[in-house]
C-alpha cells in the first residue's frame, strides 16, 4: 500500500532572513517586521548588494536575523553611518533598522539631517513607545498617561510634552521622497506595511531621495499586557496619537520660496516666507486617523 503526500508551500522563510530563532519576547513585532523587510529585499532581488545598519536597542541583533552584510553602530547614529556607506558606495542598497529611542531621542539630529540632505537610503523605524532593551523607560513616543519605569505616574504632557511625531517631521523635509506610518497587529495592516516598505526601497533604487517607514508595534512585556491586548492597544490607542498614512510620496522638491518684494532693496530678499506648497505636510491618511482597524 502506498501513501502519497501532497505538499503545497503556502509560506516560506525569505532568503534574506537567516535561519535563526530570534531573541525577541513573545508577541513582539520585531520578528514580523524583520520578515517584511527581508521579503521586500527578496522581491526586489537586491540582497547581494544590500547592507543593513543595526542600531542600539532591542533590534541591536537584527544582523543575526538577516542574511545580509551588516554593520552595528553607536546609539542613534545609524543614519550617519548609512550616509557614509551610501556616499562611499552609491551602488549599494542601504537601510537602517532603528527603534523609537534610537531614532526619536538620541538620534534625532542624524535622522532629520539625513532627510534634509535627501540621503539615498531607507530608514525603518519600529515605534513601540518605550525603551524595551533597558527594561521599559519612557521614550519620546510614549503616550500621554502611559506608565513606564521613568514615568511611574504616567507620562504627563504638561511636564514632558506630547509624543514626538517622527514621520510627520521627516516628511516636512524637502529631501524626503517617501515617508509613511503603518502598523502591525493584523493581516491587513501587515500587508499595508509590506507595501510601504516596498515603496520605500523602490524610492532608494530610483535614486530619488530619502525614504522612511515608521511602523507602530507593541511591547507586551514592558507594557504589562498579553500579546493580543497589546495588539489591540496599538490599533485602538497608538494610532490616535500617531495617525497612519503616507506623509510624503513624490520627488524631492525644493520648498517654495516667496518672491522678494522687489522694492525693499538689499536685505529683504533673504526673508523666506513660510509658504511651502509642496504637499509635504499633507498626510494622505488611511482611514480616519482615529484607528483604521
Amino acid at each position, binding site marked *: 500500500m502506498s501513501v502519497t503526500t501532497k505538499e503545497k508551500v503556502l509560506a516560506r522563510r525569505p532568503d534574506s532572513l537567516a535561519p535563526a530563532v530570534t531573541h525577541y519576547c513573545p508577541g513582539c513585532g520585531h520578528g514580523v517586521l524583520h520578515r517584511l523587510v527581508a521579503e521586500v529585499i527578496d522581491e526586489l532581488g537586491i540582497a547581494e548588494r544590500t*547592507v543593513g545598519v*543595526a542600531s542600539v536597542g532591542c533590534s541591536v541583533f537584527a544582523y543575526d536575523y538577516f542574511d545580509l*552584510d551588516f554593520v552595528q553602530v553607536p546609539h542613534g547614529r545609524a543614519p*550617519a553611518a548609512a*550616509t*557614509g556607506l551610501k556616499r562611499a558606495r552609491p551602488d549599494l542598497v542601504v537601510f537602517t533598522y532603528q527603534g523609537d529611542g534610537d531614532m526619536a531621542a538620541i538620534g534625532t*539630529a542624524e535622522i532629520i539631517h539625513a532627510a534634509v540632505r535627501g540621503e539615498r537610503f531607507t530608514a525603518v523605524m519600529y515605534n513601540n513607545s518605550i525603551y524595551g532593551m533597558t527594561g521599559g523607560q519612557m521614550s519620546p513616543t510614549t503616550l500621554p498617561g502611559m506608565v513606564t519605569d521613568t514615568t511611574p505616574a504616567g507620562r504627563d504632557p504638561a511636564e514632558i510634552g506630547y509624543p514626538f511625531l517622527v514621520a510627520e517631521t521627516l516628511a516636512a523635509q524637502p529631501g524626503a521622497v517617501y515617508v509613511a506610518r503603518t502598523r502591525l497587529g493584523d493581516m491587513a495592516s501587515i500587508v499595508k506595511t509590506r507595501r510601504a516598505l516596498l515603496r520605500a526601497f523602490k524610492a532608494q533604487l530610483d535614486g530619488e531621495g530619502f525614504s522612511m517607514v515608521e511602523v507602530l508595534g507593541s511591547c507586551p512585556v514592558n507594557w504589562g499586557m498579553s500579546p493580543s491586548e497589546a495588539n489591540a492597544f496599538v490599533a485602538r490607542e497608538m494610532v490616535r496619537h500617531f495617525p497612519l498614512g503616507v506623509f510624503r510620496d513624490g520627488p524631492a522638491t525644493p520648498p517654495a520660496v516667496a518672491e522678494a518684494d522687489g522694492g525693499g532693496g538689499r536685505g529683504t530678499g533673504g526673508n523666506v516666507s513660510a509658504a511651502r506648497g509642496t504637499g509635504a505636510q499633507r498626510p494622505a491618511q488611511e482611514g480616519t486617523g482615529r484607528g483604521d482597524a
Partner: protein
Amino acid sequence: MAIAATQAEPATEALLYKGNEALGEAAVRAGCRFFFGYPITPQSELPAYMARRLPEVGGVYLQAESEVAAINMVLGASAAGVRVMTSSSGPGFSLKQEGISYLVGCELPAVLVNIMRGGPGLGNILPSQADYFQATKGGGHGDYRLIVLAPAGVQELADLTGLAFDLADVYRNPVIVLGDGLLGQMMEPVRFPALRPAPDPPDWALTGARGRPRRLITSIHLAAEALEAHNQRLQAKFARMAERETRWEAVETEGARLVVVAYGTASRIARAAVELAREEGLPVGLLRPITLWPFPAKPLAELAGGDAARFLAVELSAGQMVEDVRLAVAGRAPVEFYGRMGGAVPTPREILEVIRRQLGGDGR
C-alpha cells in the same frame, strides 16, 4: 565602484602650503577620497580644502550636522572599505570619542585629525597641546590604543598623514594626526608624493554578500568569554603596534647632560632653545617623540641610563607628556617640566633660561 579614475599626478616640487591644506593634499595623494567634518577653528582650512579638492579626484566631501554625525559617517564609509578622514579641534574631537571607541571595537581603519586649541571648555583658538591625554590614553570608553602621530612642521604633516592611512589599514585601527593651531596655520615648503589611486576594498568590507557568506562588522560581544577574547586579540595588536611603530628624532642627545623632550610645535621652539644653549657650550640635546603612542620610552630609558643627568619636558600644556617621560626614565634622573597654557607660546629664550637653571650655576 562609483569612484572616477583620476589623472595621474606626479610628485611635486617644493610648494609653499599652509599646514591644514598640506594635510588635506597629502590625504588625497594617499588615496583618501572621503571626508566628513564639521567647521571649527583652527582647522577650518582643511575641510575647505577637501571640499574643493575631493570632487576633482572623484571623491566626496560632506559637511555633517555635528562632529558626532561626522565620526559615524566615517564609520559607515570605512565599513564600506574606503580610505576616509575626519578632522576637528578640541571640543569637536571630544564629541567624536564614542565613535572612535566603536571604530576600534569594530576594527575599522580611519584617519582622525585633531588640530588642538586652548581648553578646557570653549577655551580659545590658539595653539595648545592639552589634548595629549585624550589622544594617547584613550579619550573614549574601553581598553584601546591608537597610534598618535605628532608632526612638527608642514612637510611632516604631509608625510605623517600619508603614513597614517597606511598604518590604519595595516592594523585596521584608527590613527590620530595630532597637530595644533600653529602647525595648521603656518606655511612652509612641502613636497608631495605622486597621487595614489583609491585602493580596492579589503576582504572584510561590506560590499553586499554577492557570491560569498554575509559579513558582519560589530563591536558587541555579550558573553564575557567572547568579549575577553576580542579584547585579548586587540591587545595583541596594540602590542605589535608598540613594537613596530615607535618613532622619534634625537637631536644632539649624544653626550648631552640635559635632554629636552618636546613634540610638535613645542619641539620647534625647544629646538631653537637647544641651539642657543649649544652656542653657549651647554651640553643639551633634544628628543622629539614623533609617535606619542607608542611613546618612545626605550630611547629615553637608554639616555637616562647613559650621560643624561636631567630631563626637561616642554609642552603647551600644564604637563601631560611629562608623565610618560617620567614613566620611561623611571626615577633614574630628575624630570622637570616647563609649559605654557591657554594659547601662550614660550620663546626660545624663555626655555633657555630654564635650561640654564637646570644645569646649575656654571651651566654644566
